[in-house]
């Protein structure tokens, strides 16, 4: 991150941005302040609501393997494990997948490297996870191809859309399937954890602003368009 960017972020983080308008005299508009970037939550220790301390340590390590620290912090430092715990603690479909998935990972670590999972090197983590990741990517490619084929056949698609927000969501019974005997579990688990890690990281202050360089939510007197690069 450049020094200028750092300074800009610092500024955004401390003072907010007051809009300026091309006319005066309207108090409401003159006082219009972009404040949300100025809120800085105080760091505090997080007590997981769903995960055991051992699971949480494993999860934290896993998120950092998925999005590691580089010139910007990784997933764990960005608060991703906390985000995942909040989501999973409220989602009864995720819970058995994540719990069984972490247990599966532990067994892999012991069986292949004779060590506890948090003690594995990054390379060893990758050795376990790479086949799962490859399988997810392959499935995604195939699903997209299949989608094209289905549509190309021109079949009638019929469904009833019920979109009223007042309708209470039906609790799913899919949550109580026997996961231990489920050969698809490791891939499903990794897909879920990767999704949650990506969502959590790229919606964090670290991920969105420091890593991706989000530059919006501020005032442009004029939209610059697409300047022709200088030769």
């Amino acid at each position: 991150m450049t020094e200028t960017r750092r300074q800009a972020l610092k500024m955004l983080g401390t003072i907010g941005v007051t809009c300026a308008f091309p006319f005066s005299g309207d108090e409401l508009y003159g006082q219009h302040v972009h404040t949300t970037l100025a809120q800085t939550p105080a760091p505090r220790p997080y007590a997981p609501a769903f995960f055991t301390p051992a699971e949480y340590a494993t999860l934290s390590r896993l998120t950092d393997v998925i999005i590691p620290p580089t010139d910007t912090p990784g997933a764990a430092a960005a608060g991703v494990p906390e985000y995942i715990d909040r989501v999973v603690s409220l989602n009864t479909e995720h819970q058995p997948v994540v719990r069984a998935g972490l247990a599966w990972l532990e067994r892999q670590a012991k069986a292949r490297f004779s060590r506890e999972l948090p003690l594995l090197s990054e390379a060893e983590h990758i050795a376990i996870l790479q086949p799962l990741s490859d399988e997810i990517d392959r499935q995604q490619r195939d699903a997209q191809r299949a989608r094209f084929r289905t549509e190309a056949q021109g079949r009638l698609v019929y469904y009833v859309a019920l979109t009223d927000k007042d309708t209470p969501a039906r609790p799913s019974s899919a949550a109580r399937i026997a996961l231990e005997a489920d050969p698809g579990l490791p891939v499903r688990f990794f897909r879920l954890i990767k999704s949650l890690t990506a969502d959590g990281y790229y919606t964090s202050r670290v991920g969105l602003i420091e890593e991706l360089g989000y530059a919006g939510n501020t005032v442009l007197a004029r939209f610059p368009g697409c300047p022709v690069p200088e030769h």
Partner: protein
Amino acid sequence: MQSDTFDVVIVGSGAGGGTLASHLARRGVRVAIVEGGPRVNTRTDFNTHAMPFDFPNRQIPTMRPGKVGFDSERSRGVGGKTMLWNAVALRLSQRDFKGRTHDGAGEDWPVDYKDIAPYYDAIEREVGVCGNRDGLEDLPDGEFLPPVPLKCSDEILQRAARSLGATLIHVRKSTRTVPTATRPACHFCGNCMAGCDVVAKYNSADVHITPAEESGRVTVFSDCIVREVLVSNENRATGVRYLHRVHQQEGEVRGRSVVVACACAQSVALLLMSTSSRYPKGLANSSGQLGRHFIPHFTGGIECVLEDLRGTRATNDEGFLDHAYLPSFVHNNKKRGYARSFGAQVNYQNRRLAGWAKTMSGFGRAYKSSVKAAYPAFMQFTPYGEMLPNAQSYVDLDPDRKDKFGLPVARRHLGWAANEQALFNDMVRWSLAILEKAGAEILTVPDGPAPNHELGGCRMGRDPRTSVVNADCRTHDVPNLYVVDGSVFPSASEKNPTHTIMALAARAGEHIAERLRRGDL
């Protein structure tokens, strides 16, 4: 106040109801607006500038802490969906009004473009619509404020589209690019659909309703969820009965005429709920057509990454959301194999979320750097198609389920027929062809058609046996009952509907005021 009889009682305060109230008030008509939701202050109540990390679950709520509104589709708030719309403002063309004549399927409107054009003019003058005068035969120009400049990504798309015979234009939106005494120009601060807290973007509450209230001729009953339109033995609408959103008590607002303008499916639901011995199947439903001909737009969103911008530095291009629009370009191709057409809303993503990141392949350092490289190059490209009415697509009341107010839930039934499937396939195919030309890596393609922009259900027509309202938005059955919103569209066009809803409201306002002046109501 409740013993008053208003000239006009309008149910709903969005693009239809708000515009109509303003146009009636300026002609001296006394209006009551009955809105199910609360008063909402767009300057203070929405999370316009929130970031996902302001919230532990990273979900940005619509309302700021302690502010109420937009909690159900029966109780959004004064201003309705215009508070949170993207403001795309397109005129329908003569082809759109005469779809059956043009390609032999669906329905014609009982009006022509030239009947509605003066009202588009009026709306553009009074609210401010920005855009470029492109001279396209199928997307009529209007009285526009200057357009916003295209983004670099738009220019890449524009070149690709041009090479395939399509024209990408500056988007047209009800957002000011030139200030007035009371509204600033857009300053590109971000996500218009989270609510525009300076009212550079049109919303009916600030632009139409509040000034009309100041005239003393408009009274707003907020938090009043209308559950029935009242009709007398003489077959006249006499007012509405409502349920108070907070204390659940019932009340009535009386008027010499009633206008239902509570957004498509809810307008249908309200009329279906308003049964009587004369109208056992719902008010204004002697034809049995109420709720039929439900014709929402369908979309097929594509997510992609433009190679030319991959790895560049992220810029501040979020403000105003989409700056460009791809108008219909296939509608005159007789060999396309289906009726109707599609247009595309492009490049409208906000940059505060990167939900697409999880679909990028791999993990670890390479993954992290590939997401960073893709971030400034990510684009959403969404074609919108027009559906034809079919027997499987209608709105009715759920016989079993009630909402939290104890009112029957409005239920949507949708069946995509062969024409929709063919159109959907073609619009996705064209979109992918343009994106391929633009040098884009496709991240996701659509599962199938997804409904958007609800339209139809109280369709407009000349024949009382096959339609619900006439060309003036007046119900065939009840001479002082009107419907003014997207439900009256007999055919949907592929173009965003709100500008047309506002033009219809302005036209209906003129008509109703004239009838009141003649003592006809």
